[in-house]
């Protein structure tokens, strides 16, 4: 009986302490990602399957599933529990590689109809995937690094805007910004990114301007086969780059 009471008190304490910890810049144990430095060129680092990534220590990041957002959503059990994150600094840039196991590569190959005169438009490519969704991943960082307080994990907050490097298996890389939940919008800019799906693993590399040591970083993964899009996704807590 005493043991279970002790357990309840610990759990209650954890519920109070953990959210507070997420709001401070003091990295919780195990949430620091070590960063490797490299003299490699951008082309080498962004080459698919580049061996340069062996230099960076992988950090296993725990993923959480967002709770059902809408009553009309089908439930989805967690399938992707962790992702490996590797970070490299080179040439004034920071490179983040996110890799995770995925049972299916959800990435339709689009064959756009070429701009051709009407008489040549007989053979339009029929669309096949109106009910499919696609794999995607994102890295979120504060828009203004150096703040003593981490932004809210839910797409930042009005005082602490965030920058989101979003990659989609069909649409490529898009830079987004947000100031809180449901404020995410595209900036219209892209960024260099490369993705490989091999042996049931995605490896997606993001390139961003260098970030100072101690900058928080959070990760998200959308699993297309689970109809993930919008806030229906996997997410990590804030980690810190060394």
């Amino acid at each position, binding site marked *: 009986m005493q043991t279970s009471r002790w357990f309840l008190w610990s759990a209650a304490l954890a519920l109070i302490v953990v959210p507070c910890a997420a709001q401070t810049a003091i990295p919780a144990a195990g949430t620091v990602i070590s960063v490797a430095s490299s003299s490699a060129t951008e082309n080498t680092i962004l080459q698919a399957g580049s061996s340069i990534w062996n230099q960076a220590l992988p950090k296993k990041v725990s993923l959480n599933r967002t709770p059902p957002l809408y009553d009309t959503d089908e439930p989805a059990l967690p399938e992707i529990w962790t992702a490996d994150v590797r970070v490299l600094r080179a040439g004034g840039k920071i490179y983040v590689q996110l890799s995770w196991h995925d049972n299916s590569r959800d990435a339709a190959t689009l064959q*756009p109809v070429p701009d051709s005169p009407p008489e040549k438009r007989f053979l339009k490519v029929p669309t096949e995937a*109106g*009910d499919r969704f696609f794999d995607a991943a994102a890295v979120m960082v504060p828009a203004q690094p150096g703040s003593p307080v981490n932004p809210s994990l839910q797409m930042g907050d009005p005082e602490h805007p965030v920058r989101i490097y979003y990659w989609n298996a*069909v649409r490529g890389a898009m830079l987004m910004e947000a100031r809180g939940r449901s404020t995410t919008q595209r900036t219209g800019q892209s960024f260099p990114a490369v993705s490989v799906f091999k042996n049931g693993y995605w490896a997606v590399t993001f390139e961003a301007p260098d970030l100072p040591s101690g900058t928080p970083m959070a990760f998200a993964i959308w699993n297309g086969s689970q109809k993930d899009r*919008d806030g229906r996704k996997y997410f990590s807590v804030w980690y810190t780059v060394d």
Partner: protein
Amino acid sequence: MSKHQYAMVMDLNKCLGCQTCTIACKKLWTDRDGTSYMYWNNVETRPGLGYPRQWDRIGGGWKDGMLQPSPLPTMDDYGHAWEYNYEQRLFEGSRKPVMPTPDPQSGANWDEDVGALNGEDNYYFYLPRICNHCTYPACLEACPRKAIYKREEDGIVVIDQDRCQGYRYCIKACPYKKIYFNEVTGKSEKCIFCYPRLEKGEVNACAAQCPGRLRFVGILDDPESPVHKLVYTYKVALPLFPEKGTGPNVFYVPPFNPPKRGNYGKSILEDPRLPLDYLIYLFGEEVKDVIVRLEAELKTAQEGRRSEVLQLLIGRDAETRYHIRPQLVQIRL
């Protein structure tokens, strides 16, 4: 709530199933990449599977103030777009007949004219469908991006293509499945009630091209408009599946004519050509009152007296059928 509401009434007794409206819409709005399979305006045979298949049974809409779940229709449900090998036959000397590719297995109005049996008699009719531009749009509520809005000046429901992210919650929420996903743009699209035409004083393309002259267009709250008269004054037009709770603004004059062969003067309710249960399924219990009203009007005309309702439903000219008010449109800065 919008200040005004554009609406359409379609008289199902006059629909030929010729698909001219479908083609008018297709040529004007969905002859783009990624839109091959989509028909913002479609005409389906009833009873039948509909387009997409079983759209009327899979879900969406409102119940007790809550959005109802629904699966997303698959491309098989819509029907894969096919093309014909005209080039081989016409220009490359092939002697084989022109054939579609891929081999069609389903499509819009795939079960054309199949219908069903009422006793020993086959029956069917055509149901033209566009977006209902609902008063309480489930699609609008379902969109987490707030990409869907109802135009304040005329009640037309549109999707902001800049805000849409292609999440397709709207497609699930729409009980009429009248929103389509464009895989090429990665966004959802729907009927826009031809608002650019209305703003210039032109009626919707589907209505303008209809050889059966079965479409009536106007402002629902304008007592002078034909749609107001048919829906509120004469009470002979009903929305489709009113129980879905979205308040559709497309109304139908239910099919009741011609009378059943050899019914020897019995009323349509006594000996209907179309089973009443099916009409009640589509339009609710009120359809019985509408049929009684229409039959009374028919009797008036047959006795040589003038029926204002039938005169309007005949719709001899565009002035009778359409009441477009371009001055409603506000200038957007």
